[in-house]
């Protein structure tokens, strides 16, 4: 779609949308949100970009093919369960690494890795569909 207004607005919005999608994903551990909804939002941000600037521009913006996102997401999501096996716990048991750095308490965990995996899979799947339709 060739519209100056949509293009300018999209270029401003996309950064906010992507940032908000990451925020949603991180928030998901204790509050409504999570990898799935975050991934949907990120995918719609890229889809908006594709509508405003064309399919080719969106593919360039993404840098990697969406199928690669599915692959890495799947690997992260499934792989996150293996941290538990190293500890001798059942598959997918949450493992936590909590430490203080730069005056802040950091909480790294295997559920976070899992959520990042879900996020990537959702972005990859939705964009595979969007790009396939846009190509027509």
């Amino acid at each position, binding site marked *: 779609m060739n519209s100056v207004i949509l293009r300018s607005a999209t270029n401003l919005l996309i950064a906010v949308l992507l940032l908000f999608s990451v925020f949603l994903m991180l928030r998901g551990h204790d509050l409504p949100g999570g990898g799935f909804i975050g991934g949907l939002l990120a995918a719609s941000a890229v889809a908006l970009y594709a509508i405003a600037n064309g399919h080719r521009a969106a593919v360039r913006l993404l840098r990697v*093919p969406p*199928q*690669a996102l*599915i*692959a*890495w997401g*799947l*690997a992260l999501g*499934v*792989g996150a*369960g293996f941290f*538990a*096996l190293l500890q*001798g*716990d*059942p*598959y*997918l*048991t*949450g493992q936590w690494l909590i430490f203080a750095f730069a005056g802040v308490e950091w909480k790294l965990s295997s559920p976070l890795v899992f959520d990042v995996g879900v996020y990537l899979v959702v972005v990859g799947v939705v964009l595979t569909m969007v790009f396939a339709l846009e190509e027509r």
Partner: protein
Amino acid sequence: MSWVLVAPVVLPLLTTAALFLLRERLEAQRVVSTTSAALGLVAAIVLLGRVSDGGIQVVQFGNWSAPFGISFVADHLSAIMVVISGVMATAVAVYALRDLDPARERLGYHPVFHVLLAGINGAFLTGDLFNLYVWFEVLLISSFVLLTLGNRREQLEGGVKYVAVNLVSSLIFLAATGLVYGTTGTLNMADLAVKLPQADPALVVTLSMLFLVAFGIKAAVFPLFFWLPASYHTPPVAVSAIFAGMLTKVGVYALIRAFTLLFVGDVALTHTILLWVAGLTMLTGVLGAAAQSEFRKILSFHIISQIGYMILGLALYTPLGLLGSVFYLVHHIVVKGNLFLVAGLARATGGSFELAKLGGLYRHRPLLAVLFVVPAFSLAGFPPLSGFWAKLVVVRAGLEAREWGFVAVALVVGLLTIYSMTKIWQAAFWTPAPEGTTLRDDVPRLLYAPVIALALLTLVIGFWSGPFVALAQAAATELLNPAAYVGAVLGPEAAAQLGGTP
């Protein structure tokens, strides 16, 4: 260690990820896909060994204790099914190396094949009703992709019927799952086995009928089978062989699980319905096959009639009947998957799936004829092949239960199966090739490898049936004693509530 229990699902999923990353490199994809299928088989055999030695294996995902989290449970039945799915996956993965055109491979045959495997194995191993629904969806969606891969007209036609009917089944399954949760407040199957007997019996029977319809569509029983012969003959052989071997059997597995663990409160009613379903399934399947003249369509109708035997064993609900069901499942998956692969070889040699256009294969390729005879006569139940023992056990269970009518049906259906198999033999192998067809010599040798391996397995099951019967016996014993399953998942107190021995 819990890794053997999750490996049959986790391995295909990781393989999918690797295959997506290798999407431009077909040769690497083939290597990874075949290796992973073989590794999956090894893992499954290790799992079966664990179950044989140490009893029912349980994993609580994420360490959330049952019934709140998702449990994976491997009893003998689950482990046997996972092993046999590993066998079929390996055979088909090898066959696909030479059967598929690069266009279909580039569209993603290999990764989707492994998603399908994850779905199948997940369905066999899960101990949670809603999780079972999820795995059914995983395998349904991936099978839809495989079915229509390549976009040929008849594929899409078959695919639409397949998906429409299976979505209805999923919908009923989901609704029934919701109702179960509303009734009992739990979805863990072991917990359900404890809580369903306390619920209103009329409600439980209604629920059981909803599940019968939902799983019955997946298993292609009478009168819900019409989607199967409409779709199974359309995709490439490497796809239809795994469908024919495994997919309906996931439905049969779910039926066995549901009607031995969950819905055993009113056996006189529910299992009598199953008995009639079984009889009619056998009969309609075999009669449908008699009217067909396309290699894979005949085989498709025979899937239906054979599923009748498995349901018959379940419906009798005796130790011998269930033993027969489990043994029949194993025998049937090997034989039927192999027959589809043979159909592929016949087409590669003779150029068609239509019996009218085939001929002279015996003279041209005696080996192929032998490879057809082994599974075909096993399917028909010739001694001493695997199908004979399978039928013998089911028929004997029927005699012990004094179901003379259904035993008669089973025997007549066996005879009619011979008729169909001799029809294929006559038309494709015995009569000379029709005018104007040339039989090819350039069929890749690798295509024969899985067919020979599966035929040998059929012979092994036939001649050394002892260990296989012993395994089926162990599965049947566990199935008739739900307290063991419940005890393994929820602990001895819950099992004591059921009044059995854990």
